[in-house]
């Protein structure tokens, strides 16, 4: 994990972190550190998630009722707070995914063929 590589990573666009968290939780309950790692891995290390930003986001999602949390024990037997997607969270995920796809397609169209080359 070189410093050079970290600099190349993409910073998250405003509002996308929530979407990624919800998406990650679709596979089952997970704690904060696990969510962060999962996002990084799934994006093949392209996305930079500042771990510190994760927790206020989780807090926000919890307050909106999209996820619920409970203290539990991790695989390696450590205490951690596990987050689970709620029914409302699922609905929100579908809504947000659709919206995001439409947005990405639209931006892709505007940017045109060059974008594909680069």
């Amino acid at each position, binding site marked *: *994990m070189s410093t050079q590589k970290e600099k190349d990573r993409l910073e998250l666009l405003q509002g996308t972190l929530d979407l990624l968290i919800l998406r990650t939780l679709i596979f089952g309950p997970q*704690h*904060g*550190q*696990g969510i*962060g*790692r999962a996002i990084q891995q799934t994006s093949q290390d392209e996305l930079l998630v*500042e*771990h*510190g*930003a994760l*927790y*206020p986001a989780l*807090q*926000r999602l919890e*307050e909106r009722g999209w996820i619920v949390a409970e203290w539990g024990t*991790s695989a*390696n037997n*450590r*205490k*951690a*707070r596990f987050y689970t997607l709620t029914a409302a969270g699922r609905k929100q995920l579908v809504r947000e995914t659709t919206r995001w796809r439409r947005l990405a397609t639209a931006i892709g169209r505007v940017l045109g063929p060059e974008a594909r080359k680069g």
Partner: protein
Amino acid sequence: MFWRKRKQTDFVAEIEAHLELETERLKEQGLNEEEARMAARRAFGNVTRAEERFYEAGRWMWWDHLKQDLRFGLRTLRKNPGFTAAAVLTLALGVGANTTIFSLINATLLKPLPFPHPDRLVLVWETSGKGHDNWNSVSAPNFWDFQLQSKSFEGIAIFDFGRGYNLSPAGTKQEAEQVSGLRASAGFFSVLGVKPFLGRTFLPEEETLGKDHEVILSYGLWKRRYGGDPALVGRTITIDGQDFTVVGVMPRQPQWQFWNSSQLWVPIGYTKTDYERDWNSFVAIGRLKPGVTMAQARAEMGAIANRLAQEYPTEDADMGAWVVPLGEFGREDLRTALLAMFVAVGFVLLIACVNVANLMLARGATRQKELAIRSALGAGRVRIARQLLTESLLVGLLGGAAGLLLATWSSQLLFNVFRLDHLHLPGQELDSIPIDSRVFGFALLVSCLTGVLFGLAPAFSALRRDVNGPLKEGGRESSQGSRLRHALVASEVALALVVLCGAGLMIKSLARLLGVDPGLDPKNVLTMQMSLPQEEAYNGPPGLPQFCQDLDAHVGSIPGLTSVSAVGDLPFEGNDTRGFVVEGQPAPEPGHLPGAGYGVACPDYFMTMGIPLLAGREFAHADTLSSPGVIVINETMARRFWPKENPIGRAIRFGGTSGPRLTVIGVVGDVRYLGLDARVRPQFFRPYTQAAWPVMNVVVRARTDPSTYTVVVKKALAEFLPDRPASGVETMEDIVRDSTGSRRLPMLLLSGFALFALVLAAVGIAGVVGFSVTQRTREIGLRMALGARATGVLGLVVGRTMKWALVGMVVGITGSMGLARLLSGLLYDVRPTDPRVLGAVTLLLAAIALLAAYLPARRASKIDPIAALRCE
């Protein structure tokens, strides 16, 4: 969700767990413990910031901030007791004065009359000529026509102006007592919408003379004099020596008072003269049908009056009608005065705001470093501005609370000093000035508004502030800051000028008014009222022909009194008008009988009152029913009707060509019977020994303070009229003073406000200039080091201040025209644009501004250039 909110500690524990997990993972990748821990922390970013963000996401953040700001604000205020005291005191006086005036408005103009649907109650007046300025009371026959023909009213009734009624003692324990009461038509109570507490109201048949010996008592009188005995209803009591059956008692709630504190009501019992269409002696009161507007009622009544004028060209010549809401009648002067004072006091508060804003700005400058450090430490500009605004609001509320306290005390003081319970507001009795929720709300609103108002300037300047500037040594004042301060000077001068102008005009009016010759000598004269028996109250022979003689015999013998007499209406308290024909002059057209003010007096009246006798003689006891009818006229009447002739020995026909012949026996000096501020009009008197009058005012002149004679005079009167106690004791000096009452209160208050405004403006200007000099110490030092002389510096500072003061004066003069127009109804013999008042006020203010600028400027001119340059 608030109750499920996570605790901060839980959040911190979660972050801790995250760091542990991450360290674990990194160790698995081959890093050692120390490296893994560092890397985990690095990947996490700013832990404290994450915690802060969690905290800020809380929904009660603003409350936390408010608590913080309040705590911080209170601490800052405590640390600067001088500033706090100055600001709070200034605002307390400003808010206090405003709240006091508002409490007066609240108690008089905003309080609804104590009747159901009071907005539908109206008074109907007859008018003569064009417009409605010349309104007059209504005659019974005209009222009957109004009642028959109008469709606007649910009901309409009449009552007379009231008089004192004598209650005879019922047992040995009671004393005779005079209470005020009035005659009312049968519909009177139902028009007002008041149901009796006990018994019934009057029946239509009781309006006929002879069947009118019923009486309705007020709750207060029933409780006080008759011990609240329910069995009193149906019994007889003796009033003016005649038996009256008590048929009802009025309720206590709402406070039921009407017209001159009446305590009893008797049926109207129309007398012979009441049937005359030009005998205008009643007040008509109506209740509009729901949905009928004032304009509709006015149009309808106007049309009816015009028809009557054509039908009865002699009695109702030029007659019109005017309808006014009961809640507005008799309150015009009060409304004008209160409105003018409200405006003036609002301006005073604005000046106070400007002063406090300046204090805040000056303090803001000394706090620049503190604020800069806070923003360097991460406080947002909005957050700082908000904190400053919270501080201003705190100062405003503290000032407001002190102001409210001040108002509870000062409104009571005003009530007592100006005897506001004597204020005659039709349909309403003023017994106190309550500080109710409305007044409280007003004070709260005003303090918040002022807090925001004077807090805006410092808050805005915090929003614009450059973070680095103040931290550097010797930051100079910005041109923006000095512009703001100059604007403060100009606005203080403008506001003060408006208030001063209002006060100046009122003072000049009152001085003019007090300079008016009353035409009599009020010193050492005492008056008291008695009501006399009368078959026909205002016509026919006197009820007690020997009254004047008895008065002379019993009261005249009291040692220390120099003379004794009696008169119908006292000077300045208004009087009646009577028509007549001058003998030997062409007869007037029908309906255009010449008229003059009319009064009835006992012998020696003019001597007792100190009214000079210019020609002929006064009334004497020898003028009786068996001797020729006589009159005494005033100078104006003599000049009007007998120009270039000696009126003595000439005669008039009283009430018309066929009326009794009355010979002029004397001419006396003019007195303004309708009030000190009214025009002098022709006036004539008949002797009581020849003409009836129901209420006589006993007048005595003493050698010393007349009020000490009250008891002896009353006792002497009781010797010959035991059933008719005297009431309404007043010295003539009080009566003269009360005649200027409607102007005295606004004048004194406006002068007080003006003085306050002047002091505030002076302090404010001195503060602004002083602060600016402090800020520019280095610049001035530099100028002086470069050769500027002390006088030059003085001129620079004073000149700039005066330039802005001048701008303020121009604005102020324009503004004062508005206030003056508002005041014009209260002015006497002074035009609203009186150039002398305006000039004097402007000069005074210029002098004050000059002085206020000079003192700090002199300090500037004494700056030691070396010290000034070194001190930074």
